[in-house]
C-alpha cells in the first residue's frame, strides 16, 4: 500500500514538474524576445493578444502543426532521436532538483523533489553530460557540413566546460561534505550572511561561466552561431524536432539557475520576511534575466578564445580554488 502511494506521488510530481518546466521554458522564449527588444529600444512581439502575450500560443501552434521534414540523405533513426535526447536529458536532470521547502497539504507532507537520491548534484551533471549527445548526434547524422562543424564544436565546448564546472563545484562539496542538494541548502540556513557565495566567490564565478557555456548562451554560443555556421547542428531541423532542441536549451537554463541558487545563493531558505519559495522564484528569475542581459550586452567569442579561456584561465583557477579550500579545511 505504501509502495503504491509512493508511486502515485512520484508520478504526479513528475507530471507537474514536467508541465511546469516545459511551460516556463516556453514562457522564457517570450520573455527573452521582450527583454532583448527593450534593451535594443524595440517593442518586440506586440500583435498577437494583449501586449503580444499570445505570441507564445501562436508559436506553439506553428511548431506543432509544421510538417516533419526529414532530408533525404540523413541517417534517419539517429536524426530523429537526437532532439528527443536534448529534451529528455534536460527533463531527467530536474528529477533530482529540490525547488521549494517541504510543505503540508491536508496533513500530508510533500517534498518538492521527485527523487531525493544521495548524489543529486552528480546525477544532474551526469544527465547534463548525456545532453551533449544531442547536438553531436544531430550534427553527425544530418549530412550537412554546417551541422558537422556545429557538432564538432559542441563536443569540444561542452566537454571542456564539463571539467571547469565539475572542478568549481568541488570546493562547496568539500565544505559541505555531501553531494545532496538538500544538504547544501540546509548548510546555508540563517540569512544572507550564511550564503556560500561569500565563502566560495571564485567557485561561484567559475560555475556561472561554465553554466553559460554548457547551455550555449551568448558569449559562448559558438555551436549554433548564425554568421559562421548557419545554425550549427540544427541547420536541417524544422518544426517540432527543432522545438525540442529549443525546449531542452531553456529547461537546461532553468536547471542551471536553480543549481546556482541552491548551491551558492542560499537555496530555498527564508530571507528576512520573504518566505523560501518566493525567494527561490526571485533568485531563479534574476538568473534567467542575467542570461538574457548578457545576450543583449556581449558579442560572442571565437572558438580558440573559448578554448584558451577554458583551459588556461578557468581550469587553473578552479584547481587553485580546490587547493585553497583543502588547505583551509585541514
Amino acid at each position, binding site marked *: 500500500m505504501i509502495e503504491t502511494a509512493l508511486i502515485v506521488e512520484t508520478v504526479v510530481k513528475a507530471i507537474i514538474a514536467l508541465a511546469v518546466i516545459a511551460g516556463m521554458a516556453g514562457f522564457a522564449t517570450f520573455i527573452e524576445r521582450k527583454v532583448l527588444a527593450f534593451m535594443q529600444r524595440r517593442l518586440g512581439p506586440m500583435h498577437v493578444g494583449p501586449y503580444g502575450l499570445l505570441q507564445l500560443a501562436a508559436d506553439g501552434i506553428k511548431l506543432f502543426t509544421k510538417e516533419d521534414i526529414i532530408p533525404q540523405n*540523413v541517417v534517419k533513426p539517429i536524426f530523429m532521436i537526437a532532439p528527443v535526447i536534448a529534451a529528455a536529458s534536460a527533463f531527467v536532470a530536474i528529477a533530482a532538483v529540490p525547488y521549494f521547502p517541504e510543505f503540508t497539504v491536508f496533513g500530508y507532507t510533500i517534498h518538492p523533489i521527485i527523487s531525493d*537520491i*544521495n*548524489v543529486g548534484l552528480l546525477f544532474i551533471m551526469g544527465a547534463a553530460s548525456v545532453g551533449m549527445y544531442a547536438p553531436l548526434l544531430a550534427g*553527425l*547524422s544530418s*549530412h550537412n557540413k554546417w551541422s558537422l562543424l556545429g557538432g564538432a564544436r559542441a563536443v569540444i565546448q561542452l566537454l571542456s566546460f564539463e571539467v571547469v564546472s565539475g572542478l568549481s563545484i568541488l570546493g562547496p562539496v568539500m565544505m559541505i561534505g555531501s553531494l545532496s542538494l538538500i544538504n547544501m541548502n540546509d548548510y546555508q540556513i540563517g540569512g544572507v550572511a550564511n550564503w556560500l557565495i561569500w565563502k566560495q566567490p571564485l567557485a561561484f564565478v567559475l560555475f556561472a561561466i561554465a553554466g553559460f557555456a554548457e547551455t550555449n548562451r551568448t558569449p559562448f554560443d559558438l555551436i549554433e552561431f548564425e554568421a559562421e555556421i548557419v545554425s550549427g547542428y540544427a541547420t536541417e531541423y524544422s518544426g517540432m524536432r527543432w522545438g525540442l532542441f529549443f525546449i531542452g536549451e531553456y529547461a537546461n537554463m532553468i536547471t542551471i539557475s536553480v543549481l546556482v541558487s541552491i548551491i551558492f545563493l542560499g537555496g530555498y531558505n527564508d530571507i528576512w520576511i520573504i518566505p523560501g519559495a518566493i525567494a527561490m522564484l526571485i533568485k531563479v528569475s534574476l538568473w534567467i534575466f542575467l542570461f538574457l542581459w548578457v545576450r543583449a550586452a556581449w558579442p560572442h567569442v571565437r572558438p580558440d578564445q573559448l578554448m584558451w579561456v577554458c583551459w588556461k584561465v578557468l581550469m587553473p583557477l578552479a584547481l587553485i580554488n580546490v587547493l585553497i579550500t583543502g588547505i583551509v579545511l585541514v
Partner: protein
Amino acid sequence: MFEAIAFYMFSILVIGMFLIVVFSKNALYSMSALAGGMIFISGFFFLLDADFLGVVQIIVYTGAIMAVYAFGMMFFDTTRDVKENIRFKKIIYTLSTLSAIFVIFILLAPVYSGKIEALYPSIQGVGNIQMIGLILFTKYLVPFELAAIMLLAAMISGIVLVKIKMEETPTDIEVAKGEK
C-alpha cells in the same frame, strides 16, 4: 516486482544495444548504440542502491564514448555504411563465441558453487560515497595512488607533446611557411 520488471527491461535493452554495436555496418549506429548500452548499464547500479557508481558510470562513459565519436568523425563518413573486409569468417565467429562462453563460465563459477562472499560487507547507515572512500583509502590505497600517478604522467606527457606549437595559432604557422 518493480525491481524484477526494471531488471529484465534493462537487460533486454543492454543486450539489444550491444548486439547493434557488433552487427551494424554504420559507424554512427554502432557508436550511438554503444553509448546507449553503457548508459543503460547504470540502471543496474541504481537497482542495487549503488547510486554513486551508477552516476559515475554515466559520466565516465559518456565522456569516453564522446572521444570515440571524435575519432569516428575524423575517420569515417558517418552517414555511409563502412565496407567491412572480413576474410576468415568461420574462425572469427567460433573464437568469439568460445571466448564469450568462457567468460560466462568464469564469472558464474563462484556464484554457482555458492562460495562467493563480500570481503567488505556493506555497513548499515553509511552512505554510498563514504563506503567507497573507506575501501579506496584503506585496502586499495596503493593501487589508487599508482593510478593517480599514472594519470598525472599521461597528462603531463600529453601537454608536452602538444606544447611545441602551443603559442602559435594556425594562421601564424601559415604565415611563417609563406615567408620561407
